[in-house]
């Protein structure tokens, strides 16, 4: 055989070419970046993280003040991102389960309601839904002087929701003070829009995943369980659900990661999550490269950690094949 028709030789040449092209593309881009940065007199480095941030963060799970450093501002933003992701994931899972039950019922009214919900929320963009919920709170709700008061202690106003909070000495009710409500639990319009919008959107997808998983288990499985004399509840818990979980878990993982990714849309309504902190930092310091690098690092870490954890769990419930 002629040496240049040899399979092994060709494989090596191809790989060297591909790697070379990829590397030179990266080198070209970084070279351009370095040249552009030098021309504009910008320096690259993470020194700015130790400087005071000097911008406000309207609400956060972790405590923050504008005199804190940039690295703490990032941490606070990340805290908000993780917080909203977790409570949305929890709420959406419960709602999704309810939707799946609704759509599996023999009742055409329930099926219709479930289908309408799923089709509507899945076929419109999340950003539109978020903006709608945000406008509903800030424009649609009355001013703080004439709040909607559907239940005792619950006030809905354009400045957010005021709810009774559980505290050590019983219920802590919001009380009208001179300019605002005091005490109780105050949810900002930004938070309400994010929480509602993300949960309702994700519930539609999660509901379909659960329903699909339950339907994918062969009917014979449940029938056989009933024929063996298991009670309907036992058949559900011992036969149907364990098998359905196996199908449900992989898509559920990507759905939870999607919630995390979608939470970056907080930028649209102004909830201070990590993308908001990144955008503000880039605006204030001009350190675009570093800001984006941190954002990417955070997302890669979380995505990879989540999928590793879910894969571990998945390997425990997965079908043991001989």
């Amino acid at each position, binding site marked *: 055989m002629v040496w240049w028709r040899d399979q092994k030789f060709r494989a090596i040449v191809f790989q060297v070419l591909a790697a070379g092209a990829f590397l030179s593309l990266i080198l070209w881009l970084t070279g351009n970046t370095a040249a552009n940065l030098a021309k504009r007199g910008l320096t690259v480095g993470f020194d700015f993280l130790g400087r005071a941030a000097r911008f406000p963060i309207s609400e956060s799970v972790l405590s923050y003040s504008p005199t804190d450093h940039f690295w703490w501002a990032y941490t606070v933003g990340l805290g908000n991102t993780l917080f909203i992701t977790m409570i949305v994931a929890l709420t959406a899972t419960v709602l999704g389960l309810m939707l799946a*039950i609704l759509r599996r019922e023999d009742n055409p009214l*329930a099926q219709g*309601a479930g289908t309408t919900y799923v089709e509507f929320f899945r076929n*419109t963009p999340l950003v539109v*839904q978020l903006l709608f919920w945000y406008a509903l709170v800030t424009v649609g709700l009355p001013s703080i002087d004439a709040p909607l008061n559907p239940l005792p202690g619950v006030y809905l106003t354009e400045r957010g929701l005021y709810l009774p909070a559980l505290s050590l000495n019983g219920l802590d009710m919001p009380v009208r003070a001179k300019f605002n409500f005091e005490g109780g639990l105050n949810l900002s319009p930004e938070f309400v829009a994010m929480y509602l919008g993300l949960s309702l959107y994700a519930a539609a997808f999660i509901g379909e995943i659960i329903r699909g998983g339950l339907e994918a288990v062969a009917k014979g499985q449940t029938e056989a369980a009933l024929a063996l004399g298991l009670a309907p509840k036992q058949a559900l818990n011992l036969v149907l659900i364990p098998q359905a979980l196996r199908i449900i878990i992989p898509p559920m993982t990507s759905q939870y990661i999607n919630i995390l990714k979608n939470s970056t849309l907080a*930028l649209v309504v102004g909830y201070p999550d990590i993308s908001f902190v990144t955008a503000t930092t880039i605006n204030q310091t001009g350190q675009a490269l570093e800001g984006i690098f941190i954002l*990417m690092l955070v997302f890669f870490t979380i995505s*990879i950690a989540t999928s590793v954890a879910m894969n571990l769990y998945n390997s425990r419930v997965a079908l043991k094949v001989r």
Partner: protein
Amino acid sequence: MTGFVQTQSIDARTAPLDARRSLFRVLFGDVLSTVSTLAILFAVIALAPKLVSWGLLNGIWAGEGTQCTGAGACWAFLRAKYPFILFGIYPPGQYWRPVALIVIFIGLTLYSLPPKNWKTSTLWAWVIGTVVALALMAGGVPGLEAVPTDSWGGLPVTLILTVLSLGLGFPLAIALALGRQSELKAVKYICVAVIEGIRGLPLLSLLFIVSILLPLMLPDGLKIDKLLRALVAMTVFSAAYLAEVLRGGLQGLHNGQGEAADALSLSWWSKTRLIILPQAISNVIPPLTNTVVVMVKNTSLVLIVGLYDLLSAGRAALADPAWPAPFAETYGFIALIYFIICFSITRYTHWIERQNLFGVNR
């Protein structure tokens, strides 16, 4: 041996009982059914009269901003603003050009729906149609006033971003998917890194990266406008997602297909083009159309980088101080447009799934 022969006919049996349940049993058969029926009925009874009086009875259908007092829906706003929401800040005298683009794209889509039209000529029709539509939008030839992309807006931008990001992303996705399946380790790992790197990031940060970093990463003096930058981000994004769908198709293919092609001593290129890809792609058409829905919805994110798509145009219209910001009507209108597009594609996907396209049941 005695035989037995039936001499008498057997009586006719009564028909089985009607298996259908009564409406009452369907709606109130068990606790769960009863609860959901009551909850749904309650919601409808509570909400429907309010919606009717807000939208129909008290709705303001025509007039100025001052007439919208808040008692009912301000449909007059949509009536006054719909050209702006649909076409953005495109010069009003030239509206026929974005309309032509919309008509061309819708026409091409409708023509491409039936599987019998999936031919090379359809592909060329798309290429030519897209070029003509973009040329119409841009103008600049004698007789057509030039309109810079900064002035494009509304539905055309949404459609352009969808069509171009998917159209340009698809060949890229095929390359990435094939690369990921490759036996050449270097090629494989580069493709894995690219696909997973893009899929690990939210589209929003990808848009950020491209809109902030791309000007820095290219040689000085090379300027690319906002629309093109957003398009780069969307194309890369759709390529990574389409590549994962295509990988499913490639993995689902029986090994024998490639081995048979090798046995017939087809070259790698002929094997891939004639044997592997046609089967791999046709096996994943439903998930591919799902990716189309995802991309249509994702175009709404470009408002982050300051592009005037359908949603940003609607938001800008709401900022007009002469009107009392009727957000529900406006976002409802925009959501309806997206819904019509996405729901139709979803229905089409279901229809395609039911067709036994290639007459083989695997």
